[in-house]
């Protein structure tokens, strides 16, 4: 009897030695590829002291770039969130032909080089295109202005929410929804009261990742921004400018602020999780 308990335990959990080895591998890997680069960013940011850090952040051009970055994220993340929920609903709750094809199309922006994702909008709205000059005639600027930067950001962060929700909703199946519907709930009620609570963590995760990437995108935005200092520079572009001015501490200071913003959203997520954990 005692023998059996021991063998079951060792078959449902690793031995302490294996556990130790796995943790060591995980930590070593994370240290080499994640923690040390972050330590570099933070230590470079504070190389000249806290005063210099604040000076770099409170510089008018830096503030303008922070404002622009927040604005762009505030527009692109909600749009991609609505798309993500709709796409995941269609894909997870229904069987239709060409589903794998549709999922692959959703994945596509991940594999498009950021250089190209910026370039497509230049081709679409640039002076050499049909649309660009026509819109300009109406006084609408797309490229080298907020709309272009937002479009490029939407493109790059497009798959995040959908990709997070699709596997989750496929796993959960449709039994809960079918039950609610058979009890007379409307489709919209079912979504709000049955589906949404089920997917809230995945949704939150997708939104956070989408937001982090939206604030951090460099390559695509760089192509459509025009780099006008204090006007169309986002935080990542401002970082590049500072770095190219040999102003390394200030560049890393703004970078550390991006890290900070990401950490704040993650702390929020943890707090929400704790409060609503069932």
């Amino acid at each position, binding site marked *: 009897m005692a023998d059996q308990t021991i063998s079951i335990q060792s*078959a*449902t959990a690793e031995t302490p030695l294996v556990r130790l080895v796995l943790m060591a591998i*995980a930590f070593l890997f994370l240290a080499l590829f994640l923690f040390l680069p972050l330590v570099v960013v933070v230590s470079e940011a504070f190389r000249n002291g806290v005063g210099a850090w604040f000076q770099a952040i409170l510089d008018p051009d830096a503030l303008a770039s922070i404002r622009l970055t927040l604005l762009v994220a505030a527009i692109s993340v909600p749009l991609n969130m609505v798309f993500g929920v709709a796409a995941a609903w269609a894909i997870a709750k229904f069987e239709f032909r060409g589903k*794998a094809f549709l999922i692959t199309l959703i994945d*596509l922006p991940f*594999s498009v080089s950021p250089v190209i994702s910026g370039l*497509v909008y230049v081709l679409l709205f640039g002076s050499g295109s049909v649309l660009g000059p026509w819109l300009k005639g109406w006084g609408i600027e797309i490229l080298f202005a907020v709309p272009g930067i937002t479009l490029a950001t939407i493109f790059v962060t497009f798959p995040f929410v959908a990709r997070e929700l699709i596997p989750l909703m496929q796993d959960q199946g449709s039994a809960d929804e079918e039950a609610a519907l058979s009890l007379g709930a409307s489709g919209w009620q079912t979504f709000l009261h049955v589906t949404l609570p089920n997917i809230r963590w995945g949704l939150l995760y997708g939104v956070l990742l989408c937001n982090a*990437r939206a604030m951090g995108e*460099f390559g695509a935005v760089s192509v459509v921004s025009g780099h006008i200092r204090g006007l169309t520079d986002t935080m990542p572009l401002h970082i590049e400018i500072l770095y190219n001015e040999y102003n390394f501490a200030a560049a890393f200071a703004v970078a550390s602020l991006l890290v900070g913003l990401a950490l704040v959203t993650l702390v929020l997520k943890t707090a929400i999780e704790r409060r609503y954990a069932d």
Partner: protein
Amino acid sequence: MTATVQSSRWHFREPGVIPGFRLTFGFAVCYLSLVILIPLSGLVWHSSNLGWDAFWALASDPRTIAALKISFGSAVLAALINTVFGLVVAWVLVRYRFPGRRIVDAVVDLPFALPTAVAGIALATLYAPNGMIGAWLADFGFKVAFTPAGIVVALVFIGLPFIVRTVQPVLEEVDREIEEAAATLGASRLDIVRRVLLPGLLPAILTGFAMAMARGIGEYGSVIFIAGNIPYVSEIAPLLIVIRLEEFNYAAATAVGVVMLSISFLMLLIINLIQAWSRGRFGHG
């Protein structure tokens, strides 16, 4: 007669009771077309300006092929490394309790938030011959930064969250009772992991692998800081695009983009088909 026709009619969608297909599918496809397909078809259309002969000459140019090999090779290698270690990280984060777990968990997402250029600079600082890790490796005769290995290092950093974040939620959902049941049936720990847990995780692992790889193929910002960018050795395909743009040759730039896009589209499609197949075969999960 009519009955046979009806039963063999081609169904786009299998019938069900859940509402909202038209609304959600319609919206998703419209938004997808507007944001992704129209811009990308513009790209393909532009590359067709190049003409077939010039397109073929470009696509079959040894330098283009070398760059594509480097981009795809490093992306696959980095995604493999991430799959192995990302799986271990996800496992440790889900199954073990240790102080600071939440912090580690939070930090995993940071490669998304950090602008890729900053990531490249930070990694180059560390892995350069005068950097903390680089100097140590140099003692053993290894060079990482400014070699092809540097590209892989950058792509591992960029792709890590994809694997961890796709495996982690599924691993959290795994029913521990199945493991216990297998254990009472006399399976060893290794057997349980291999035969019970891994098959269930496989779709998530594949998804993570696909996304990390896809992301790595096109990555530019972080790689140029650490790669060395020497033609035929460490020149990545996105750099070729930039070079064509500097020549004001948009057609050639878009052509390289289209070649990359087609290959990654095929790779992603294959992975998604495998996944759909395995889902059909093993049921949910």
